[in-house]
């Protein structure tokens, strides 16, 4: 009998210590709403409804960041760019794997509790890789969109499938790659397929049952305002996908989404008009999906300048007045400041070389300067930036994002026939290179040798001051970067790049404080969380999810 007593005693101790961090407490809407009150968690794709990717944790700071050490690594079992963004709730990390698996992971050890695999339909089609960018968690469920355009709800505790809802028609090349957005009692997703002539939309589903609650097309139908920005039946297959998670302002009850390119991508002449609401920011009522306002960045786009950037929300005194702002570094090369109560254009300036437009008028509409055939357009097809999630730090007042410098594309437009479920691109492009046939930059990096070099393009991490629309500083990398950003209350900025370095940078000065070579391209954003009093930072590089904390 003797050995049993201490055993019971120890068990009780562990139980009481664990209750606070490993409870099965529901992740209620109210908790997500007040995500800033529990900085130990990372509750949404972008860390909270404002989508600032700013954590109030400060255990890791400028003085000790040098002492970061690797705590664990989770290896992906699937080839291809791992773009997923983990969510961390009470010590458990939820992360997706290509094409559509979800894992629940112990955030302290990296060991996997359960794994769910979704079997996609054989004809699922995506333009740019079998990507998935993560889950949403609400109450006792985990939600994931799928390549075959479904939304699945899983039991958060055991990973069992609870329901599946059809989001779009896979035969018409609809897909879901974004992490869903959970608001109140609904789960919202947008659809991909902008290269296949879809008609885009955002749809909301009942979080309990999976029943569709509303669906708002990003291309207005006949009789709706904006429909006259299309001719003939172009609107029926005009693209305008939504493939990046939106943000939410609970006071205004508005959700915000970035809308992608019109189709066919590169032949603007084939679809005359502004092509609303392609390449726009849209504000949708969270309960009804009704369109409250829109702002179009690139009317009649000929360059694939998707506006699928994360709508970053910031409340700040802007030029002497308290404002509810939306900050937006657009793929088209301009940085914008919008009033998010009504979509009013407040400011816009180019942050990289731009020659498709000579500037913006007082309403923010670009003045087009299309380049002659065969001449390079700046920025190139992947844009001045793209979907990589930025960060806004209320502490520094700066907006951080990955830009591509010195990168241009020569476009070729041609007539495209719309065939349901097939590519609908309207031409092609080549990346400007210093000599004929020289290697150029692709969508991702698979070569350990950078044989295209900075002469084809390079990365600049820019720290933008929303007050001026100018970069306060910029941190360059030799290769381009698809990495997102993370800032903390201790004014650290964590980011990566295609070279596989994971950097900690002084968010005020732009000085490099620490870095480590992780070997594989970083094509997502880092996240931070705390378990049992220890702050962790996780980042995905290549096929590895690496988690760091300070030395014990």
């Amino acid at each position, binding site marked *: 009998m003797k050995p049993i007593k201490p055993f019971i005693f120890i068990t009780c101790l562990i139980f009481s210590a664990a209750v606070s961090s490993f409870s099965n407490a529901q992740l209620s809407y109210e908790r997500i709403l007040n995500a800033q009150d529990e900085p130990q968690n990372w509750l949404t794709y972008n860390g909270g409804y404002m989508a600032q990717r700013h954590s109030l944790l400060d255990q890791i700071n400028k003085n000790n960041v040098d002492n970061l050490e690797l705590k664990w690594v989770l290896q992906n079992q699937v*080839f*291809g760019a791992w773009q997923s963004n983990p969510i961390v709730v009470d010590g458990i990390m939820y992360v997706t794997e290509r*094409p559509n698996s979800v894992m629940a992971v112990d955030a302290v050890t990296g060991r996997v509790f359960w794994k769910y695999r979704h079997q996609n339909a054989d004809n699922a*089609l995506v*333009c*740019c*890789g*079998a990507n998935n960018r993560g889950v949403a968690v609400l109450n006792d469920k985990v939600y994931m969109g799928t390549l075959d355009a479904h939304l699945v709800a899983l039991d958060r505790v055991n990973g069992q499938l609870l329901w599946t809802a059809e989001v779009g028609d896979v035969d018409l090349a609809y897909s879901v790659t974004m992490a869903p957005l959970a608001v109140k009692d609904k789960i919202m997703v947008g659809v991909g397929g902008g*290269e296949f002539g879809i008609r885009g939309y955002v749809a909301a589903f009942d979080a309990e049952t999976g029943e569709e609650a509303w669906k708002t097309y990003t291309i207005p139908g006949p009789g709706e305002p904006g429909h006259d920005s299309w001719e003939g039946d172009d609107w029926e297959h005009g693209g305008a996908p939504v493939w990046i998670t939106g943000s939410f302002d609970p006071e205004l009850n508005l959700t915000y989404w970035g809308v992608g390119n019109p189709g066919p991508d590169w032949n603007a002449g084939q679809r005359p008009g502004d092509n609303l609401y392609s390449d726009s920011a849209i504000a949708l009522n969270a309960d009804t999906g009704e369109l409250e306002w829109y702002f179009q960045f690139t009317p009649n786009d000929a360059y694939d300048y998707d506006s699928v950037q994360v709508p970053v929300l910031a409340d700040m005194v802007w030029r002497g007045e308290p404002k509810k702002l939306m900050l937006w570094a657009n793929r088209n090369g301009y940085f914008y400041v919008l009033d998010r109560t009504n979509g009013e254009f407040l400011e816009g300036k180019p942050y990289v070389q731009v020659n498709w437009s000579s500037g913006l008028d007082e309403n923010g509409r670009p003045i087009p300067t299309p380049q002659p055939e065969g001449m390079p357009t700046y920025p190139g097809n992947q844009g001045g930036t793209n979907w990589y999630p930025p960060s806004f730090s209320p502490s520094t007042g700066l907006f951080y994002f990955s830009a591509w410098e010195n990168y241009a594309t020569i476009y*070729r437009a*041609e007539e*495209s026939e719309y065939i349901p479920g097939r*590519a609908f*691109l309207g*031409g*092609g*492009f*080549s*990346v400007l*290179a*210093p*000599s*004929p*046939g*020289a*290697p*150029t930059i*692709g*969508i*991702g990096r*698979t*070569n*350990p*040798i*950078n*044989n*295209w*070099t900075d*002469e*084809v393009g390079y990365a600049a991490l820019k720290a933008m001051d929303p007050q001026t629309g100018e970069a306060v500083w910029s941190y*360059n*990398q*030799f*290769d381009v970067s698809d990495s997102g950003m993370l800032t903390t209350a201790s004014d650290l900025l964590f980011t990566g*790049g295609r*070279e596989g*370095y994971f950097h900690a940078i002084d968010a005020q000065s732009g000085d490099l404080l620490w*870095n480590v070579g992780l070997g594989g391209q970083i094509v997502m954003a880092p996240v931070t969380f705390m378990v049992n009093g220890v702050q962790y930072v996780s980042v995905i590089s290549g096929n590895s999810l690496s988690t760091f904390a300070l030395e014990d």
Partner: protein
Amino acid sequence: MVGASLMLFVGSGSNAQEVGDHQYTTEAIERGSRIYSRECALCHGPQGDIVDGVNLRSGVFKSVQSDEDLRQVVFSGAGQGQMPAFGLNDADLSAIVAYIRAGFDPDGVAVRIGDPGRGQSLFQGKGECANCHRVNGIGPRTAPDLSEIGVIRTPASLQRNLLDPATAILPINRPVRIITRGEETVIGRRLNEDTYTVQVIDSEERLRSFRKADLVSYEISMRPSKGPTALSSDEVADVVGYLLTLRGQ
């Protein structure tokens, strides 16, 4: 064919010599170019070299050998879903194969191809190529090894490298001049570079890697180490003819 000075379209390049002349029409190559842009370029890249282990433009594949293999992969997909199936019709499949086999060059710029035997003599002698370039295990390693150059370059590209190397040199190959803190000066050719480091082969054929923060200076020359060739146009055609025969093991 060997021995005669013949006109060869760039588009039918070195690979076309294997599949036989005139197998694919210029129209097919042109059509393939459009299909490639539409269906393939997003993943494979404009130069066909983005997917690891595959270089479509120069005919490097994971499993494909014959044109029929190529059609099959495009039609049915490959790599357990990494490459999706493209249900193209027969003519479109032929066009895409034509474009890939043509080395991605639909423009049809004619390049003179001379006598490989004479070209080899020029390469090793008067042309001074072998002073820096290595072929099949013979020669220095300071300049790029040319043992497979006939596979990875088109005739037009080879000709341009001889006539106007400054506009033809690939940026990664640019000569570099490095001065270390230890006051060593290193002249070499760049092999790789990232934000914090650079890898070179130096003039003594040593592989060297440097942290940029440790260097006093690091200069990249925009001029290749060799200027335009002094060879005559007939001689250039011969050298191009020889280079096209260099197809590795």
